[in-house]
């Protein structure tokens, strides 16, 4: 059987359909792990909530608007200072978050007055900011607060502000993925088409599903600039609220994270006929391929080739140095969803590593289609993996390194396995040519750290426990 029931899951056999080991001759038509279905309570899931998918992942990266969370204070507090998305706006989006700080009386009598006051106070506190995103949360959704109505009232009263409302409480859907979807569709419905951006190039794109983690997006913006391409909407890393309202003016949608933002690309295609081009920006081969496709689309292949040649000449020797040392190393990728399939072939083909286990928090079946198609036989593929399963996976595959989140990383370090931050990136940026060298460098530094050898030693024993 290609599906595996871990020992820890013998008491919850429904987990079996989420855990798959690829065998020779199998394809995704025959077997695909169950994904994007509700978590079993009490399994120590790694998943977050739909609200966080909307706020923390997507809306929070937009650089020039106020984030107003309509709910108790924790929803704002806990989605603040947990991301590394930068901007060229003095990182306004990292520094500030607002909450209506709902109290019991507002739950009883409604929180709309409080929301209205809080919105006006926030605009008064940041007079230079005229844009805002209001998010509903579990409590305010349950009591039925109409955040749209309040937003329209304030827009009318203040005259020069624009407010986007996201109606995606934490309990919606099965994971943060629901929040990505809601934000995409609501932005498309409510905001795209409202602004007419100034166009300075015949070649215009939106970069979609790229969140400028540690400046990843700056690299992409730089590549576009060097090819003479204007980026209109950057959805949403270093994104500008008004430019994102002008996404309909781009000639091409370059999609990076298909999971969190493929929706808006599809809608832009449907409504405005803008073609969607998916690229993988991690790894030399992939980024070169992506740039070539963009160049071909606009008929500026020469510019793409020039850029690729310059970047390759600059970074290839460095990558080769690391490749020699990383070849054959076993790696796990336990991240959100798409990074499984974005990274697996880059690690395998370009660095000679072996990706031995992959787990995602909020991937859908199509993410597994891609991950399994690109991944090797014998590799373990898990949907919504949890701690006890991770322990068994580690025991089975004995990885040299794991790309995962900081908390799981804090767990696996006790097992003498180095982790790298697969969400926030250890020492990024990770995208593009230089980014892939950074990834290789981080992996090399972690795997070859002397500390892991020291950790294994037992000084009570003459042979040091080896």
């Amino acid at each position, binding site marked *: 059987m290609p599906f595996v029931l871990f020992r820890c899951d013998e*008491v*919850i056999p429904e987990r079996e359909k989420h855990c798959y080991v690829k065998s020779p001759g199998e394809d995704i038509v025959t077997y695909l792990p169950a994904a994007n279905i*509700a*978590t*079993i*309570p*009490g*399994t*120590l*899931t790694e*998943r*977050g*909530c739909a*609200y*966080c998918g909307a706020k923390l992942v997507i809306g929070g990266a937009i650089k020039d608007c106020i984030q107003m969370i309509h*709910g*108790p*204070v*924790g*929803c*704002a*507090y*806990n989605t*603040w*200072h*947990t991301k590394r998305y930068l901007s060229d706006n003095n990182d306004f989006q990292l520094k*500030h*978050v*607002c*909450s*209506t*700080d*709902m109290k*019991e009386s507002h*739950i009883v009598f409604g929180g709309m007055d409080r929301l209205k*006051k*809080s*919105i006006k*106070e926030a605009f008064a*506190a940041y007079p230079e900011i005229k844009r805002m995103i209001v998010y509903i949360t*579990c*409590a305010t959704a*349950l*009591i039925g607060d109409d955040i749209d109505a309040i937003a329209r009232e304030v827009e009318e009263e203040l005259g020069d502000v624009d407010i986007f409302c996201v109606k995606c*409480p*934490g*309990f*919606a859907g099965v*994971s943060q993925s629901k929040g990505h979807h809601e934000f995409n569709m609501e932005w498309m419905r409510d905001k795209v088409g409202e602004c007419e951006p100034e166009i300075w190039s015949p070649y215009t794109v939106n970069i979609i599903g790229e969140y400028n983690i540690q400046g990843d997006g700056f690299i992409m913006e730089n590549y576009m600039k060097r090819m003479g391409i204007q980026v209109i909407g950057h959805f949403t890393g270093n994104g500008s609220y008004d430019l994102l309202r002008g996404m309909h003016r781009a000639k091409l949608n370059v999609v990076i994270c298909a999971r969190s933002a493929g929706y808006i690309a599809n809608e832009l295609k449907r409504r405005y006929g803008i073609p969607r081009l998916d690229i993988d920006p991690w790894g030399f081969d992939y980024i070169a391929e992506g740039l070539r496709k963009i160049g071909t689309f606009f008929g500026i292949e020469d510019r793409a080739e020039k850029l690729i040649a310059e970047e390759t000449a600059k970074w290839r020797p460095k990558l080769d140095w690391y490749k020699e040392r990383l070849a054959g190393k076993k790696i796990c990728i336990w991240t959100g969803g798409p990074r499984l399939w974005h990274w697996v072939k880059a690690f395998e083909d370009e660095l000679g590593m072996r990706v031995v286990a992959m787990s995602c928090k909020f991937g859908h079946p199509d993410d597994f289609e891609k991950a399994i198609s690109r991944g090797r036989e014998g590799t373990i593929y898990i949907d919504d993996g949890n701690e*006890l399963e991770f322990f068994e996976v580690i025991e089975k595959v004995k990885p040299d390194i794991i790309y995962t*989140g*900081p*908390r799981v990383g*804090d*767990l696996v*370090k*006790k*097992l*003498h396995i180095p982790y790298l931050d697969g969400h926030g990136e250890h020492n990024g940026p990770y995208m593009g040519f230089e980014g892939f060298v950074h990834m290789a460098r981080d992996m090399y530094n972690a795997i070859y750290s002397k500390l892991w050898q020291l*950790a294994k030693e037992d000084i009570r024993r003459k042979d040091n426990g080896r």
Partner: protein
Amino acid sequence: MSLIVEQKDRSGVINPMYNCQPCGAQFVCIGVKDCIPLVHGGQGCCTFVRLLFAQHFKENFDIASSSLHEDAAVFGGVKRIEEGVEVLVRRHPSLRVIPIITTCSTETIGDDIEGTIGNIERNFLQKEYPEREVTIVPIHTPSYSGSHVKGYDTAMHALVSTLARKGQPNGKLNIITGWLNPGDVKEIKHILQEMGVKSIILMDTESFDAPIMPDRSGFAHGSTTVEDIADTANSLATIALCRYEGGTAAKFLEKKFGVPAVIGPTPIGIKNTDTFLRNISQLTGKEIPDSLVVERGRAIDAMVDLAHMFFADKQVAIYGDPDLVIGLAQFCLECELKPVLLLFGDDDKSYVKDPRLTELEREANFDIEVVWNADLWELERRIKDGSVDIDLIMGHSKGRYIAIDYDIPMVRVGFPTFDRAGLWRHPVVGYNGAIWLAETIANTLFEDMERKHDREWILNVW
């Protein structure tokens, strides 16, 4: 001089200083051994609190979620609790306590937690696991009431009131620490050992400082056992170090089991630590040993070295948990720093009636402004518009950008302190905490002097 008390005059919060109740409850529960709390709400309510703990401690703590979804909003979420408990019990053979921590969503829906626990005990635990003793503890922490401070207090009370059992007198002293760091707990245990006092620490978080071991066995966990909590009913007395975080549990033990309760003071600074030692001595009959007099002397010596030359007249803003803020303000007065602005981050009116504030007012030769129901904007705005002149900020890492953007030296203290390495390993309580505080403040000011070329030559000889 005067102590001006005011509250934020805005409705909303800009840059929150406090978290919501379930976070405080989760912090208490991870201090219990063989305990995995089940947070009854959306997945984010536990996933992001776990991340916050990991940011602060660089450790993983197990907290489960009931993974509430839309159907529960219509039909109620108790099925999710039942399933969650069953999965936890089945998968974790050593598990002994499962606190059910409610959130805003499940309190709004009105799920019957106590009734559900009864059902689980009858229909699942007694039938399928009659040989195991697993206690399920209801903890009601709607996120729209109070803050993590109240959540801590509520959870401590819930655990103690559910688990404490009258038995034989144990001759021990209960210490309810409040939301302190593992370094503080270590210091408290050190003091008790020097005093020769046996104790029950609620919660003993020293083991959050987990090693990487050759046999791969070191994982972060709490060390207070079910037996420890049960035995609190039989102790000599309870000292709650933080009035607002643990005080209710101490009073419960006094009322229900006749265990005398001493609430506070939070032993930050010399005088508060003196009072703590005297209280221990009085409650247990043990003498204060010479060794602690020596430690006290070292702390005073360290403070003397710094106070008049570097600390005098420096204006300090302090924010964070109420007992920590008050304790730090008292410490500041002891070493000539001026705590001119104190900020509390929720709407609990009792903070501003705290007798320790009256005492501060009496002792200070300057005006003190106290803002309750505050957010970090209350601090930033005052600095931005020049209404206060701040030489030093003391608070947790959520305020880091104020220090960075306005170029004001800052000492990270409390929780969370994710932008500095390992601070949680160091105490702020006890005489050793006073040394750490004084020297950390000094070194922070010194670095600022050097960077700004502000009389940095003083440091050549002092």
